[in-house]
């Protein structure tokens, strides 16, 4: 017993992530689901803004939260070529450290997006931040640069004039980096200690803004699902080898949602794939053309699947059959994806309106709205009893006063 306590203690001292941290795009499991309870549901701008802090640049990446630290990326400068990584105190929003690097790749992108579009990822020891310029930085959580990569310097045609947005994922300890575009399109598995290539595979020559999902089987072995216009390729993160391929096509904007051994793919509307126990195959369980997501990624929570379309309509369907149960019009449009905690769905519109939907209501019910007054395109982070959301100019912590 003492030995176990010692191990647990050492793990904590080593700074690993703990339950409640928000460690990557759509959270630690990449599904937008949080175990947090006690978030405010009747949002009130006078009562629930714990702090707001100006950022030194634009961005739509999601914040990450590890313990009492919030990490966020931004891009600044006339040419958007100043890549910024900030660490803030979750307590009061004060800047703990701020690092700036020069973009090495292209900083051209559509005016609506930003060079700080992809969300970083952390293992609780290091922070891995990638930008639309395909520049990748690994820092320790105190802001010391450990290594960097300039993937467009290494592979000069790896770029997208509209901007890149796929976020990083960690699987089996390997940093899986999607650089999918019309020309030099690939995914590379990087050693998280050195940033060197462990493997590199060619991908469909087509722009792609989705983020991979990571599935862990019961033995703890992980598998990565790469989504593209060609469908889903399940790959072994240790080798990059393709294990299986779902070939009915898929969206290149919203990403898949994972729950247990089910993968919900934005394909032909929404398609549910059941993963085999050995991870070597899949079986299509249902498909619904009425659940087609827009930009926001779908969300699987408890017995339901939620999909938000480009008209701002939130659809709820039975998770086992795909049968639509109800739909609710929200104030859209939405560039970011929703998150869910304690039976409430939180989503921020591009107009900056936070909306909370009570999922226990028979046909869903909008519990509250709160206008932050700025364009928001990020998916919020949920940690420590609070929501963290950012615009092109600032970041907010939203919580009950007792959590300020």
């Amino acid at each position, binding site marked *: 017993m003492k030995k176990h306590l010692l191990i647990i203690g050492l793990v904590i001292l080593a700074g690993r992530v703990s339950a409640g941290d928000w460690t990557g795009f759509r959270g630690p499991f990449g599904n937008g689901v949080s175990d947090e309870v006690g978030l405010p549901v009747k949002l009130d701008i006078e009562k629930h803004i714990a702090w707001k802090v100006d950022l030194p640049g634009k961005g739509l990446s999601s914040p990450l939260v590890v313990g009492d630290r919030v990490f966020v990326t931004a891009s600044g400068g006339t040419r958007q070529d100043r890549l910024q990584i900030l660490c803030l105190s979750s307590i009061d929003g004060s800047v703990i450290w701020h690092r700036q690097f020069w973009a090495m790749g292209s900083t*051209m992108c559509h005016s609506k997006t930003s060079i700080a579009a992809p969300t970083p990822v952390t293992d609780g020891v290091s922070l891995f931040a990638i930008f639309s310029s395909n520049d990748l930085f690994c820092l320790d959580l105190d802001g010391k640069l*450990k290594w960097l990569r300039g993937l467009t*310097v290494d592979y000069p045609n790896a770029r997208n004039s509209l901007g890149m947005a796929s976020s990083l994922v960690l699987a089996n300890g390997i940093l899986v980096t999607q650089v999918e575009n019309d020309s030099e399109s690939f995914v590379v598995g990087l050693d998280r200690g050195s940033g060197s290539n462990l493997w590199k595979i060619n991908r469909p020559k087509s722009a792609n803004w989705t983020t991979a999902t990571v599935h862990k089987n019961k033995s703890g072995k992980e598998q990565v699902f790469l989504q593209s216009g060609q469908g889903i390729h399940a790959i072994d993160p240790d080798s990059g080898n393709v294990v299986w391929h779902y070939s009915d096509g898929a969206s290149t904007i919203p990403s898949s949602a994972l729950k247990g051994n089910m993968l919900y793919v934005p394909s032909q509307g929404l398609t549910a794939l059941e993963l085999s126990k050995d991870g070597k195959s899949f079986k299509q369980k249902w498909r619904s053309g009425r659940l087609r997501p827009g930009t926001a990624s779908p969300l699987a929570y408890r017995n339901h699947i939620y999909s938000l379309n480009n008209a701002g309509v939130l659809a709820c369907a039975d998770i086992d059959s795909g049968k639509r149960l109800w739909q609710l019009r929200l104030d859209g449009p939405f560039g970011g994806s929703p998150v869910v905690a304690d039976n409430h769905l939180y989503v921020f519109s591009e107009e900056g309106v936070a909306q909370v939907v009570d999922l226990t209501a028979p046909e869903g019910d909008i519990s509250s709205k709160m206008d932050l007054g700025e364009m928001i395109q990020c998916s919020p982070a949920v940690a420590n009893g609070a929501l963290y959301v950012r615009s092109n100019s600032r970041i907010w912590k939203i919580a009950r006063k007792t959590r300020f």
Partner: protein
Amino acid sequence: MFTSKSFRQFDEKGIFCFVKHTRIVLALLVAGLGNFEFGQSANDEFAKSVATLRNVGGEGKGNIAASQAMEYLSNSGKETIPALLSAMDGANPFAANYLRGAIEVIFNKILEEGGSLPLIELGEFLLNKSHDTKPRAMAFDLIRRTDAEVANRLIPGLLGDPSVDLRREAISRLLIQASGLVKENKKPAAVLIYRQALDAARDLDQIQTIASELRELGRNVNLTQHFGFLTNWNLVGPFHNKDRAGFDEVFGPEKNFALDTEYKGIDENVTWKQYATDDEYGMVDFNEPYGALKEVTGYARTTFISTSDRPAELRLGCKNAWKIWLNGKLVFGRDEYHRGMRIDQYKLPVQLNKGTNIILVKACQNEQKEEWTVQWQFQLRVCDSTGTAIHSISKTDAKVVAK
């Protein structure tokens, strides 16, 4: 590289910097030869760490050693900042960013501890234009973050600076002045200040602002000339681009681009046609002579006469798949369609020959039918690394140059 002369008049701190700089430079030179036995002293360790960062290469090569070097350099004192900036001279982009990372850590530590920066050394580094533009711009940032008043005093002297970021500061200042003069109804003075700003401006947004103000004041502005867009071309096409295969296919103009050559096109033999654009931003539009075709490839050829052998940049804007050759040698190509276009979208370093240079551009149009995929066009200019236009000289002048 810095000159030792510029450091000789320093106080004690400055002399230290000179010694440190010299050691670094020597260490870098020797480390570059690969046979240097580094000592254990702090200075040698510093120099070794800097050399390690400068040796980082592509695909993560040298990252592990760099991580250890970063650990050492990040714990250095503030007096090392000018030396770390110097070490960026000639460094590759990976090394420059590593060095930047080390400086950021040191700088933030100084701020936290309430210490002061070596402002004089940083200022002298900034003013020494033999250093690379990025570390000089960083020196300015550090000065501004430390003492905004000192930075503000330096700004007027940055007009015409090799660093586009630095000259931008001075131009912004002129725009404020000129705007004030307009409000005071001092039109001649305003026009001249705007002219001065335009001459120095390299950023599109500033150039467009100035052009708009000058035109408002009744003055002519030739943006085509300012940017140096190439406007006189010969075009040939259409060749096919079925299934986007034309990008890789070698059509006749890639084998022989002589203007009197006839090629097999899609339906018939095709020949070069003279084409001149009067678009202010030099847009060469294949749809004009050939119609709004789909799944086609076209070529454009122009002659550029340079006064000397010199480095230059071809700067391209294009939303079609494209390839560029200079004097028959492929410079670069990219098979992306309709993802966006802007001035200076691609910056391609080249070496111009004294006299005649032939530029050949291949532009492929794909099968997409949407309204925003009609364009089959590009814009190209020749400039130096700051974006200053290099103009082709006339054939008459070329004969003089040749002599």
